[in-house]
């Protein structure tokens, strides 16, 4: 059945139809029907994606060209989809995880009013559509359409409970920070157009590889383009300096956090860079910058996560940190490792978020872990799946996180001063284990610290919620198997699969296999130690006020406040200055001033008309003398 590639347009189209039906019919459809449509469309896409994946695995890649989106002069931007190894893999992740989260949502959001329920599912479907567009696009413009589209959906979903002003502000923040990155992305696209005359991936990469006559990138071009693209990625994938929106984005419903702000959208930056690996590999500078930013983000977010008390905030910072890891990998040239981590991270982070959703659901909306504790008895499924997620993210073998994280850690040796990167990354991995297990222990162990009412209400979530948890837990366990490195006698399936798209990295500072294995063992042991330490500290958690450095961490290094002080406020004040002073007093003042001058002139000039005949004659005579002088003595 090769012809499934002919109908790939259905993959995004079906969710789009779901969006339209749910969006327009939200007042008329029942909740069940809305849920069915919402899930069904994504399921359909998922099935198609599997089908596509099978085809791709057999080596059939395809570029589907539908119509010219924009065609001006020589510049032709087709509306085209590119189905290859990379996109098919992402299709699976998106539709697969997306489907699970849809299912989960039917239960999680069941208390909403019908039209809001419909609105929610239509947004989710629209998101799936946009995300699919992003990964399927055969050129940067289609990718950008998806890119902004997911930003929009993120905005809509963060602000889903629109009565809450704080949530809306968080939504705005997310959108605007994304837009900053988007601008860079756009400029990169324009730069590409200047040099290539088109935006199709194939054309761009061909030029980059020097396969096209008369068209080439200079090294400076490459660096500028890749840097701009990377800035775009920092916005979408929440890297320094544009990461602060992601924790705030937790204002949205928890499944949204799981889907958008953990599993899929935030990995768009990784996808984009992996997609552009041809370009990136040409710019050493950018690669280094990417690696440093990634590592710094990972470390920073991890430290902040240590002291967060909101269950979702911890996960959010963990996401930021993990994304940092992925960028570290990209910067090290280990694109496959990054993609691999995207996949595993999608599993376990979705799992963790959905787990936290289950907890919040059970706690009646409570998110502060200081008010939880001892939930493991009541929420058995949730607890166990959450535990699996924690193990996976902490990187304990043989769960999925171990393999992907290890691939990243090892890749750092490709960099100059690789050992420094390795040590810091390793430290971050330990921190990850620490805060995740702190979260686990504080939430599920010890005694219950909530209200009596909450205690009374505690119950395991319905099957629609636990089933996705179980599936994801399973995937978290086995997901790593596709990427077992050769060191461990695996065959690195994923690396091989992606090799047509991502050329294997030449290891500059190859390290011996034995060292590699030794490092794996060391880090695993250290992780276990850290977990033990966390158990000792948090098995019977009692809240106490943070002081000193802890307080700095709890307040996220005061980065938000800093941004507010050095960017937002000055701009705000400057806008006010322009509005109240420059525009009204200066620019309009000049215009009105011209009028006023004329009016003043009029008032003064009319005094010349004094009413006195003598003065009239005098002025006439003066005028005559003046003109005589001009005529006879000046302009002879």
């Amino acid at each position, binding site marked *: 059945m090769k012809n499934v590639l002919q109908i790939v347009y259905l993959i995004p189209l079906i969710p789009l139809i779901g969006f339209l039906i749910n969006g327009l019919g939200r007042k008329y459809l029942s909740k069940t029907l809305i849920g069915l449509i919402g899930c069904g469309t994504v399921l359909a896409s998922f099935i198609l994606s599997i089908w596509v994946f099978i085809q791709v695995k057999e080596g059939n890649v395809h570029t589907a060209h539908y119509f010219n989106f924009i065609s001006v002069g020589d510049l032709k931007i087709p509306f085209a989809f590119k189905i290859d190894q990379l996109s098919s893999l992402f299709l699976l992740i998106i539709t697969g995880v997306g489907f699970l989260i849809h299912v989960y949502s039917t239960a999680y959001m069941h208390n909403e009013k019908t039209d809001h329920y419909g609105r929610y599912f239509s947004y989710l479907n629209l998101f799936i559509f946009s995300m699919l567009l992003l990964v399927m696009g055969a050129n940067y413009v289609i990718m950008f359409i998806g890119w902004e589209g997911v930003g929009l959906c993120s905005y809509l979903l963060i602000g889903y409970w629109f009565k809450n002003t704080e949530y809306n502000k968080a939504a705005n923040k997310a959108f605007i920070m994304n837009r900053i990155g988007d601008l860079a992305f756009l400029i990169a696209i324009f730069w590409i157009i200047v040099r290539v005359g088109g935006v199709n991936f194939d054309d761009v990469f061909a030029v980059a590889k020097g396969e096209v006559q008369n068209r080439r990138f200079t090294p400076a071009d490459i660096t500028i383009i890749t840097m701009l693209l990377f800035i775009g990625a920092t916005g979408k994938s929440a890297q320094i300096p544009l990461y602060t929106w992601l924790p705030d984005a937790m204002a949205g419903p928890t499944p949204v956090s799981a889907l958008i702000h953990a599993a899929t959208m935030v990995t768009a930056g990784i996808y984009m860079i992996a997609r552009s690996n041809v370009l990136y590999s040409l710019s050493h500078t950018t690669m280094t910058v990417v690696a440093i930013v990634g590592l710094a983000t990972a470390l920073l977010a991890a430290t902040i996560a240590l002291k967060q008390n909101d269950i979702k905030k911890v996960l959010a910072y963990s996401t930021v940190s993990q994304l940092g890891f992925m960028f570290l990998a990209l910067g090290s040239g280990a694109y496959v490792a990054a993609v691999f981590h995207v996949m595993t991270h999608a599993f376990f982070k979705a799992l963790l978020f959905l787990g936290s959703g289950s907890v919040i659901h059970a706690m009646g909306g409570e998110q502060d872990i200081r008010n939880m504790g001892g939930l493991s008895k009541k929420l058995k499924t949730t607890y166990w799946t959450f535990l699996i997620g924690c193990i996976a993210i902490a990187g304990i073998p043989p769960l999925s996180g171990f393999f992907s994280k290890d691939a990243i850690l090892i890749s750092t040796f490709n960099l100059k001063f690789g050992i420094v990167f390795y040590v810091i990354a390793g430290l971050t991995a330990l921190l990850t284990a620490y805060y995740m297990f702190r979260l686990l222990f504080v939430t599920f162990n010890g005694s219950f610290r909530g209200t009596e009412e909450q205690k009374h209400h505690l119950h395991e979530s319905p099957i629609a919620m636990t089933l996705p948890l179980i599936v994801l837990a399973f995937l978290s366990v086995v997901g790593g198997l596709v990427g077992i490195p050769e060191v461990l006698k695996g065959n690195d399936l994923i690396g091989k699969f992606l090799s047509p798209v991502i050329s294997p990295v030449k290891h500059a500072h190859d390290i011996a296999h034995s060292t590699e294995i030794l490092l794996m063992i060391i880090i695993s042991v250290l992780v276990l130690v850290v977990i033990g330490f966390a158990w000792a500290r948090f098995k019977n958690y009692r809240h106490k006020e943070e002081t000193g450095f802890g307080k700095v961490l709890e307040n996220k290094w005061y980065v938000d406040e800093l941004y507010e002080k050095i960017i937002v406020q000055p701009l705000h004040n400057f806008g006010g200055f322009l509005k109240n002073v420059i525009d009204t007093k200066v620019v309009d003042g000049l215009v009105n001033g011209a009028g006023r001058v*004329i*009016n003043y*002139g*009029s*008032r003064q*000039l*009319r005094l*010349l*008309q004094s*009413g006195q*005949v003598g003065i*009239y*004659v005098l*002025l*006439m005579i*003066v*005028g*005559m003398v003046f*003109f*005589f002088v*001009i*005529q*006879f003595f000046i*302009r002879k």
Partner: protein
Amino acid sequence: MNALIISAVLGVVMMFSGIVLKQNSAVRSVAFAGIIILLLVNSLEMCGTVLFKVDINNLIAFNRFTLVFNSIAFGATFIYLLLTAEDMEKVGKSYAEYFALVFFVLCGVVLVTSFKSLLILFLGIEIITIPLYILTGSDKRNLRSNEASLKYFLLGSFSTGIMLMGIALIYGHQGNFSTEGVSFLPEGVKPSVLLVAGMLLMLFAMAFKVSAVPFHFWTPDVYDGAPTVFTSFMATIVKAAVFIAFIRLFEDSFGALQSGWQFIVALIIAATLLVGNITAVFQQSVKRMLAYSSISQAGFMLFALFALNTVDAKEGIILYAAAYSLATIGIFAVLNKLGDYSYEGFNGLSKEQPLLAGTAVVFLLSLAGIPLTAGFLSKFYMLKAALGTGKYLWLVIFAVLMAAVSVYYYFRVIQAMYFKDSKAQVPVSASAYYKVGLVLVAFLIILLGVYPEVLLSWLYF
């Protein structure tokens, strides 16, 4: 020639009609008949029929330009009478005499547009101004009217003195009073200083008559003080006629010296536009504003003098004369109906008298030079003529900026009429004649603005 004699005769007829006829309406009918006759005989002459064969010894010459303008002047007078003849009753008791004076003025108008000799110019101007002194002062119990009359008289005779000195100097140079004395100047020959000085004095005197700065001082006071019905007359028909005389004089007598006086004329234009427009801005009385606006309009008309001798200037001044006269007569006619000459007097007129307000808008738009009114095209011709000389671009730009200023004060009237609410208006009584007249004027303004060939084609055939 027809019009010259008939108008003088009509003046005499009107003089006696006041004695013979007791009813004002009868006098009025005679006047209407007279002006129509005047129009007819002038048309006859345009068709080539000259009723009176008089040996004029090359002192007077009628050409198309003159005849077309005279027709405009008579036509405008007709409309003027249509709109204001009734209101003249309010001025004073000498009803028939006013008409007589109007006809005498028209006689002067014919003279100043057709002179070939400076003597005729001088006589013509005097025949125009002496009746105007009287008409200005005709509201005898009104001190403002008295004052205006005396000011006009003193300043007017002073300017006559200036003009005569100019004529004398020119005579000293050329030995006769013909306007063709210096029709051309050989290359490289410096003009006689006598001639140049005489020319400048003539320039000043004519500038006085057309109220160009700095010889304009009489205008606001006289226009303001004179009875509104007569302000309308002297601000339009008379002024336009003097303009024609001005241009004729400078074309015939001093055309060869154009490069010599062009700069001074440019300065006068700039000053006229500046003072006329800027001063009008702050006026609180619409009547006085219109007086200043007539100064600014004169500034524009002077472009025809500035450009001189081009087709654009010729056609333009004809069109301008028509457009300006019609619009100003119209707006004065509306003003005349309102007791209150302040801007507030116009408040809410659109609700009380939509017809008056609507036509007034047309007049004001035309004065402001908004397209599809005759006012625009006439200004356009002037600018085109000025640009055609290829000199003094700054002057043109200055002129259009000043035109924008003029929009300010003209539109204040529109604002008052349409955008403001009235305080209890004094009821306005308007006869059917009057209304028809207004609509006719508005129609003519738009017609000339859309299709000026209607008028201009008379200049050629």
